[in-house]
């Protein structure tokens, strides 16, 4: 039933949704030749079949790149890496659902014991495979070349310092004019290997200022959480006075300023893949075949960037089904080779140091 008699002017209605999605990780294929050399060089020695792996999201971009390159070179091979998170990946390996797990931390304790049951005749191994710096990003108009020591970073993230012009920050930055903006410290709200490695660094290099335990969950009070590295990047970008920590590729894609971090030698080092490789080279490597790393945050190697994360591939040297083992061996041989490591350098990952890469290659060679 029509109630209205008056003519209603025709109204136009327009709805437009603008959505900006920050791309993360470049798709650049050209591998820049790197100075760090591994033992295994040259073409990929192909295997066929299909394997499933899952785990760390931090190495997802590296895995995607490797899988793409490997599958292009080797027809008849299928490698399915699912970035479900390190804990879920390790659990899936224990449950026998996958052929290798990617993880931000080495498998240990009870989980290692139950995972080792899969490795009949061989051993459970943690293979360092993907290294990358954790960049400290900040949003402070007019401030370039911010320098931070571990103690200052710990004080910022624990809430002991709340203004950017605090004398503690000024002491790290002689000659720099700092605004009185309130510091908004941004951390990951989801469990993350990036958080784990940052807090390990803070606990290792500034134990007196960082009294919270390290781990993949953020434990300090205060600050703002943000989901994922892209969330942290977006929040820092949108908030004046914010500081956050992300993998290098996110910092570069968002063109945010990164802080120089003081290393054990007393230098303030800008974040870069080369400086990170130097940093990783200071880590103590457990005796083969289980190449677990212990980071030394006070090492005095010049030019080393001190905040980095190394992700492992966790698998068995023996005990996998024969068809899978060949492909796992072939694939990991490629990823630990010079070519493999160089292929991911443009994605913000640091090539493994030469001697570490060759140790990994020699353990991979024993997989059967």
């Amino acid at each position, binding site marked *: 039933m029509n109630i209205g008699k008056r003519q209603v002017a025709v109204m136009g209605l327009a709805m437009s949704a603008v959505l900006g999605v920050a791309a993360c990780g470049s798709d650049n294929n050209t591998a820049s030749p790197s100075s760090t050399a591994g033992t295994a060089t040259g073409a990929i020695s192909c295997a066929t079949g299909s394997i499933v792996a899952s785990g760390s999201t931090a190495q997802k971009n590296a895995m995607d790149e490797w899988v793409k390159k490997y599958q292009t070179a080797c027809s008849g091979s299928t490698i399915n890496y699912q970035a*479900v998170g390190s804990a879920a990946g390790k659990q899936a390996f224990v449950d026998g659902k996958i052929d290798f797990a990617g993880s931000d931390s080495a498998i240990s304790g009870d989980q290692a014991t139950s995972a080792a049951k899969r490795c009949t005749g061989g051993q459970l191994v943690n293979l360092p495979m993907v290294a990358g710096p954790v960049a400290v990003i900040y949003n402070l108009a007019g401030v370039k070349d911010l320098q931070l020591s571990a103690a200052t970073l710990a004080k910022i993230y624990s809430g002991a310092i709340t203004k950017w012009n605090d004398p503690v920050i000024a002491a790290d930055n002689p000659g720099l004019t700092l605004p009185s903006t309130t510091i908004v410290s941004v951390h990951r709200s989801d469990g993350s290997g990036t958080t784990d490695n940052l807090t390990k660094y803070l606990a290792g290099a500034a134990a007196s200022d960082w009294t919270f335990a390290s781990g993949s969950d953020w434990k300090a009070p205060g600050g703002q959480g943000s989901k994922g590295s892209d969330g942290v990047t977006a929040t820092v970008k949108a908030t004046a006075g914010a500081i956050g920590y992300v993998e290098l590729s996110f910092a570069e894609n968002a063109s945010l300023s990164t802080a120089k971090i003081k290393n054990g030698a007393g230098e303030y080092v800008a974040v870069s893949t080369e400086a990170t490789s130097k940093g990783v080279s200071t880590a103590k490597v457990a005796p083969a075949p289980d190449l677990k790393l212990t980071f030394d945050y006070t090492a005095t190697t010049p030019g080393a960037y001190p905040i980095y994360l190394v992700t492992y591939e966790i698998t068995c040297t023996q005990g996998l089904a024969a068809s899978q083992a060949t492909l796992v061996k072939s694939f990991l041989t490629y990823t630990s080779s010079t070519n493999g490591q160089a292929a991911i350098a443009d994605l913000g990952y640091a090539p493994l140091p030469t001697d570490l890469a060759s140790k990994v290659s020699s353990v991979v060679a024993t997989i059967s």
Partner: protein
Amino acid sequence: MSSESDGQGAGSPRGNGPPALKKPVSGSAHARVSPADLIFKNVTRAAGIGLLVLIAAIAAFLVIEATSALQANTGNFFTTTEWFPNASPPVFGIAALLFGTVLTAVIAMIIAVPVAVGIALFITVYAPRRLATPLAFIVDLLAAVPSVVFGLWGLIVLVPRMNGLQQWLTDYFGWIPLFSTDDGLVGRSIFVASIVLAIMILPIVAAISREIFLQVPNPHKEAALALGATRWEMIRTAVLPYGKPGVISASMLGLGRAMGETIAVALVLPASFNISWHILSPAGNTIAANVANGFSEANPIGRGALIASGLVLFIVTMLVNIMARAVIARRREFSGAT
């Protein structure tokens, strides 16, 4: 008035069915019931029972998975505001999460329901047909936008643009505790998260309310107009009373969505575990968002703790729905009368 026969429960004396079915359906009907009837009856019954079994199975799964984590918990699950289930010893509690879940959902409802009812009234009563149809279509379309899109939009677009309004609110209305801030900062607050949620539940509430308002019997409206009511008076006396139970039920569906919304909230809120009424401060977390944040890196205890929080959400949602049912049942008898 027609009483749908739900199997044996038929036989309402006033149910005047078609002549062919004059004989009572119940009773000694075995010879009368065709196989198709029997099959259909059992299929519908199986669907009904299947749903109950499914709900029971979900509840049982949640309880079983949560038990070991709750036993390992060294905090009080109901009063602790921290959430460190992966630590040893694990300490976690639902208090802050439940508070955030209810607060964001309630604010979202306060914003969304009036707007949604307004949209529905405009479409059904005021808008000319050539505008009403596309408008209804667009509102429905809003429901199809994935929640991660709302989340990213909230984080990247809405949060920076809301800072001005939030700052203004706290500057001029900061004397109201709700609008004061902890340290002068505004940003990714409960308030902004609630606005995102409000936009997400808007299409659900608007679409159902619209359908309800369309069903208002024309004689009711005509009677109101004949008595000299203006259009607003007609809405007040005929449309709204008739539609009230439907609007409540639509709102409850929206509330369920708001409380269970995961990824959009996880992206917008800064995931802090505190109980604060300062809705403009960047703080807060909800149960569903916390599950999304914590699940991938959780150890077995952590997973159990997240499932326990899911159980709480399950129970709260159920209570809300039961309450809504009760309200609707109480209102129903008045619905046609006024």
